[in-house]
């Protein structure tokens, strides 16, 4: 999950203008302290065994959303992010899926 608690900064050259909730006090204040409760508000439930990482994942940069992308990682290059991934998947509050698919 990605959050900026200090100023809501966001990689808009890559992802466009951020969703309103990303800039909200509630997301900025809570995502670092209770990420699982925040994810539940997006309809995402993490298993107990999953590790929630907040911020930039230095061990696996940029490839993180690709691991669970449709077609697997090979089908998924950064050039196709805008098509494949809603902003929630890139921010980490949703799972990757083809845009428009449910």
């Amino acid at each position: 999950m990605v959050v900026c608690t200090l100023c809501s900064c966001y990689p808009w050259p890559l992802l466009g203008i951020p969703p309103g909730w990303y800039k909200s006090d509630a997301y900025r204040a809570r995502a670092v302290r209770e990420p699982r409760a925040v994810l539940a508000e997006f309809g995402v439930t993490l298993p107990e065994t999953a590790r929630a990482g907040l911020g930039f994942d230095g061990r696996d940069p940029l490839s993180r959303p690709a691991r669970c992308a449709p077609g697997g990682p090979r089908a998924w290059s950064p050039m196709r992010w805008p098509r494949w991934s809603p902003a929630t998947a890139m921010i980490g509050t949703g799972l990757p899926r083809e845009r428009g698919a449910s």
Partner: protein
Amino acid sequence: MTRVHDMGGRFGDGPVRPEPEDALRFAEDWHARALAVTLASGALGQWNIDRSRHAREKLAPQDYARFSYYEKWLAGLADLLVETGVLSTDDLAGAGVDGPHQLADRVLTPENVAAALARGGPADRDSAVPVRFKPGDRVRTRARAGNARVPGGHTRLPTYAQGALGTVLRVHGSHVLPDSAAHGLGEAPEPLYAVALPATALWQAPEHGGDEVVLDLWQSYLDPAP
């Protein structure tokens, strides 16, 4: 203490309310104009991104709390324009003197917007400051999160992460130090690291013991830890 913007970990904000994926990114027409005016003003070259962030975070707490996101942008921008002498308070009130502005030749014209955005504002720099840590090193963040040189000044070490033990994940190279650049004290580039801070080191009652926050932190925010 830092300032009102430093809200990570705060209690009492209520639920996050996700909007549909296809929701309009600009809830109001003027939000797009506020973004455009802010970008165009930044292109005048009178301040850097760290100073513009500080302009928003040093708004009065009462204003910061009641302003919407783009109201904060406009309020910070108005302060910056006056502080740097680009405009006067008379100008902002519509009572200024008309005529060509001294910065008119720096105006960001529509055909140059895409290229300016694509250039971005890279903050990586060469630095003479030796790299002190490597991946796997244990570190402790500074005991007090505030700007070490300017009381109430800009910093990227959040209060919730002060005095915490963590582990270096990655060395990002050297980058402009926001704590210095925001206050006209020079870019002072130094090494920047991704540091993993376990939830158990940050919160009185961690939601899940295995979770962690990964923060990008400058070298001067960190001390070695056993």
